[in-house]
């Protein structure tokens, strides 16, 4: 049994890699690129939502902000696309610093609302600053090239961008399984205790926020470069909502769940657009509600639990496994609450 568990991880990884390599052969290449970018976005968001316990509703600011930054770098400097994408990621990280600084001290719904508000400010600026961003038309005609090689074919661009995207996934995985990631989980589960152990909880949250934003930015930058176009929609709040939806669908705190959620949502959107259906929001919304109600831990989370139940493995920390005395101490107001 232990052997099969040890064998499972490389097997899953290999399957994922094969799928990533084969994707543009299986589906329309631009859709494949969308999936890969959204998958990284969802994984980066899960770093915050699932492993730090922060529900950001403003990640469009980083995905979209980086989309514009990367597009502008590509348009005005003519640098190779990876440089533009990484520039976008750096821009997202820098943008995340003040936003995170002002919001990580808030909890729960307040954090979500404030991140949403900041993202709407970014949207407003992008929309108004027409000379730079093209306003409602977006930023068009973004070149994609690498050492003189033209990558405007989505099929080719997919493979050119894949190493960067995979590096992004490795980065998320590394952060989650690092000493830092251990502290994040402790903050998620019991911030008062983490403080009592001497950890400056807000500073850890801030770094998690910045890292998550940078990786979301990497994904958003590649998305814009791949399409040759940075759209106003990329900084709109629906983009933040869609990313949250992907993570919840796949399973919060599962990392790979977000990838599955992204694949599902992108495929569904594409299908509905192709058949000319108007009410995309209604359909995805309904499916979202059903999945969340039926599979409370998301698709990946539920599958993992079923598998664990079959192999007789118990997962700690699930409802019913601890007693009610756990969790944050009942009477420590002022801990992590807005001051």
């Amino acid at each position, binding site marked *: 049994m232990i052997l099969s568990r040890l064998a499972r991880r490389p097997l899953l990884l290999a399957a994922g890699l094969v799928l990533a390599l084969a994707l543009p052969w299986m589906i329309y290449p631009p859709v494949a690129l969308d999936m890969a970018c959204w998958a990284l976005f969802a994984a980066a968001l899960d770093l915050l939502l699932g492993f730090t316990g922060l529900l950001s509703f403003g990640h469009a600011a980083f995905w979209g902000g980086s989309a514009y930054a990367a597009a502008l770098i590509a348009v005005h400097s003519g640098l190779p696309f990876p440089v533009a994408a990484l520039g976008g990621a750096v821009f997202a990280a820098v943008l995340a610093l003040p936003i995170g600084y002002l919001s990580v001290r808030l909890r729960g719904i307040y954090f979500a609302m404030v991140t949403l508000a900041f993202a709407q400010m970014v949207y407003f600026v992008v929309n108004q600053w027409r000379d730079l961003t093209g306003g409602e038309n977006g930023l068009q005609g973004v070149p994609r090239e690498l050492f003189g090689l033209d990558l405007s074919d989505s099929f080719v661009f997919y493979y050119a961008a894949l190493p960067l995207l995979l590096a992004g996934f490795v980065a998320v995985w590394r*952060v989650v399984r*690092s000493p830092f990631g*251990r502290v994040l989980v402790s903050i998620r589960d019991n911030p008062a205790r983490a*403080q009592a*152990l001497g950890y400056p909880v807000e500073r850890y949250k801030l770094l998690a926020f910045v890292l998550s934003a940078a990786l979301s930015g990497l994904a958003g930058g590649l998305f814009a470069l791949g399409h040759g176009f940075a759209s106003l929609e990329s900084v709109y709040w629906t983009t933040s909502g869609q990313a949250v939806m992907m993570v919840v669908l796949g399973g919060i705190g599962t990392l790979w769940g977000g990838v599955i959620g992204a694949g599902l949502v992108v495929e569904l959107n594409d299908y509905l657009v192709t058949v000319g259906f108007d009410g995309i929001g209604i359909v995805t919304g309904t499916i979202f509600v059903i999945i969340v109600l039926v599979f409370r831990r998301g698709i990946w989370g539920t599958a993992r639990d079923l598998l664990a139940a079959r192999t007789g493995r118990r997962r*700690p920390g699930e409802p019913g496994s601890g007693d009610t005395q756990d969790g944050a*101490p009942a009477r420590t107001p002022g801990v992590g609450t807005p001051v």
Partner: protein
Amino acid sequence: MDGPVLRAQGLAKEFRGFRAVDGVDLDVADGSVHALVGPNGAGKTTLFNLLTGFLKPSAGRILLGGRDLTGSRPEQVARLGVARSFQITSLFPQMTPREHLELALAGGTGLTWRFWRSHRLLDRFGDRAMELLDQVGLAGHAGTPAGTLAYGHKRALELALALALDPRVLLLDEPTAGMGAEDVERTVELVRKVRAGRTVVMVEHNMSVVSSLADRVTVLQSGRVLVEGPYAEIRHDPRVISAYLGDADAGH
């Protein structure tokens, strides 16, 4: 035992007009074991929350050595050498006791900022973690998720976490509450052992624990200090007997 290592001066905490802690002066002598007793709701836990930065005082000052701690954040207080345990067990349910202690031990090292390294980096604290677990009798449960531990084991882990910080001042909030006689005995032995080189402040209802450990006792009632002195003196104080010891002893 020298001068006070930890002092509270006129410390008060008001919750919406209700004074849970109402002008408390407390001098905890360096190297002593200082017990804090009093009926439920007397303000003992609130006092701990004030001393450790979890609550901001409405009035008064807190001094550690010569240093003003008033207004410091909990993690700063912890770093300055004041560690606490929680009355209501406060753990990370998914983590094992060993992982808890690794986290506690890694606190001051800066290693926990390394998001680009494997969490195996924390293995270097494994030996010390096992030592501490052994001290509190948890070595056999080092790999069990804390959420599934028995109550007494959770209390023991709570204590081990505070000890892992190797604090100058150890604040224990009802460390033996809900424990069986055997675990109480072990906890008393443990406190006796770890008090060397430290100062211990403990909230404790069990009077035999207080009498066997405490150098001094402060009795709190309705947020105020009722009386303070060595156990032998205060146990005969009529005010104390009527306020607290009387009804507490009645149960034993």
